[in-house]
């Protein structure tokens, strides 16, 4: 048995390394952020203040910013992702489908800093001029649009995130759509449904996959750092409208890190933010899995 045993022992090292890495990451988050929770307790999470000289840190504005931008991203991305998936399957010849899939994969492979650069100097000004200003002018009475917009703000970040997140959502939905049994499609057509009505039926059938796509998109959007940091405005105030500049937890970490070592508690505060980000992400994934399972068993 010697060579088999040796092989197993050798390979065993590697899964153990991944356990150590995961445990190490979580542990270092808790350990390094401990001082800030000790000092501020829950205040850290429920107040919005960033005053390094006074060592006063509260990341509520960042949490709110994360929720707003990610929510916006998923809200915009989901119908687009579904459309892209359905389009590639229903409305184009099979040869083109591979091309579209490749394009989608390419979108997913682009480095975020490239999205950020384009977002900052090309997309933001366009969004500002053609979407945000008009919305503010005509619909400014709605609280959502009530701030006079500058090019970089939560709205820009959310929209840019939507663009980045579409390919991930879309590929999950596409796989599920392709896997729908042929019989369902044929049955729908055979009772005289139009293509649109058939599509409605099919997408209803893959509801759980669409949920999964949403969860995936949400997770990615919340974790996204660089592109967001470049277009979100990086202002430590609690946002009142979509057009306010703000922070997300991850952009806060990226943006404030260069200063961090000059202060006593900032490093801990940033790690605290990271730890919260991890917890939120975990919660969403678990919630998402539960939701998906519920939808699946309901069928």
């Amino acid at each position, binding site marked *: 048995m010697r060579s088999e045993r040796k092989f197993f022992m050798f390979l065993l090292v590697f899964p153990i390394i991944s356990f150590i890495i995961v445990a190490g990451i979580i542990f270092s988050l808790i350990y390094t952020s401990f001082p800030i929770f000790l000092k501020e307790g829950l205040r850290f999470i429920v107040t919005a203040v960033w005053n390094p000289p006074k060592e006063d840190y509260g990341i509520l504005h960042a949490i709110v910013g994360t929720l707003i931008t990610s929510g916006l991203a998923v809200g915009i991305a989901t119908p687009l992702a579904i459309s892209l998936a359905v389009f590639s399957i229903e409305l184009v010849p099979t040869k083109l489908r591979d091309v579209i899939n490749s394009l989608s994969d390419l979108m997913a492979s682009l480095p975020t*800093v490239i999205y950020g650069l384009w977002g900052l100097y090309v997309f933001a000004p366009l969004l500002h001029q053609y979407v945000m200003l008009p919305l503010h002018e005509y619909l400014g009475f709605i609280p959502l649009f009530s701030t006079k917009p500058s090019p970089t703000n939560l709205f820009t970040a959310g929209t840019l995130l939507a663009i980045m997140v579409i390919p991930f959502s879309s590929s999950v939905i596409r796989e599920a759509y392709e896997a729908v049994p042929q019989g369902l499609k044929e049955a729908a057509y055979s009772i005289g449904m139009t293509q649109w*009505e058939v599509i409605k039926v099919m997408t209803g059938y893959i509801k759980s996959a669409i949920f999964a796509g949403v969860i995936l998109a949400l997770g990615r959007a919340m*974790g996204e750092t660089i592109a967001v940091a*470049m277009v979100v405005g990086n202002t430590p105030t609690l946002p009142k409208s979509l057009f306010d500049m703000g922070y997300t937890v991850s952009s806060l970490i990226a943006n404030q890190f260069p200063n961090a070592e000059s202060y006593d508690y900032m490093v801990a505060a940033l790690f605290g933010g990271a730890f919260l980000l991890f917890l939120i992400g975990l919660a969403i994934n678990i919630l998402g899995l539960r939701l998906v399972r519920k939808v699946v068993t309901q069928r």
Partner: protein
Amino acid sequence: MIARKVKNKIMIGLIGLLAIVSAAPLFAIIASIYVNGARIISPRFLVDFPPPPLGGSDGGIGPALVGTLILMALSILIGGGLGLFTGIFLSEYGHHILSHYTRLSLQIMVEFPTVIIGLFAYAVLVLPLRSFNAFAGAFALAIVIIPYVALQVREAYASIPYSLKEAAYSLGVSPFVVNLRILLSVARRGVATALLVGLARAAGETAPLLFTILGTTLSYFEGLDKPIGAVPLLIYNFALSPYERWHEVAWGAAAVLLTIILALFIVTRSLVKEVKL
């Protein structure tokens, strides 16, 4: 009935429109990067030191490019290697209870926002060494790469027909030889794809580098225990700076980075096509 047909046409049209809107940014991004970047790229651009903020027309991304190449090599060595063997473990011992937890572990690793991985490397390698260093950057990148490579390698090995595994073992060689010489060769396209995808991530990731390498622009390479530059980090820093000249350099650097990514993407695609045959 006519109303339904009209609605059908409208909705189908809408779907098409939304799909095009979804895909359009890709072209817009690639176009604007090359248009803006082409203005500034030259062979010297790839080699020169960056210009001063208000500086003249010379200058380039030499140190950052070298830094990225070094980081890519180091991180694919560490991350690719660890990922490869983890993937083989998952395929060879997939039924083992440990495999289940390993896959869970890899799932969690894949979903860590890369900021967190960067912070981890900072805590573990930068703080103790009291200096930003290249190794910490490579370490962080490796962690990003491991789960992708592991899961893809597992796929590649798992899709080897059982009959070929039996044939390999029947040659009377050890499991090391079977898995690392024979089966690796059989699955080499899948493994190569995994490594290329890892390489692309190593080239383009920025957050893991923010907290680890500092991003020097003053020298090509000072040692693994010293700071180093990298292209994505340069783009990030220069784009956010207030200097017009540096913005130009950022566009040029983005064009270089995009080219690297596109090249890797195309090679990966062509490999996958052959695997499918």
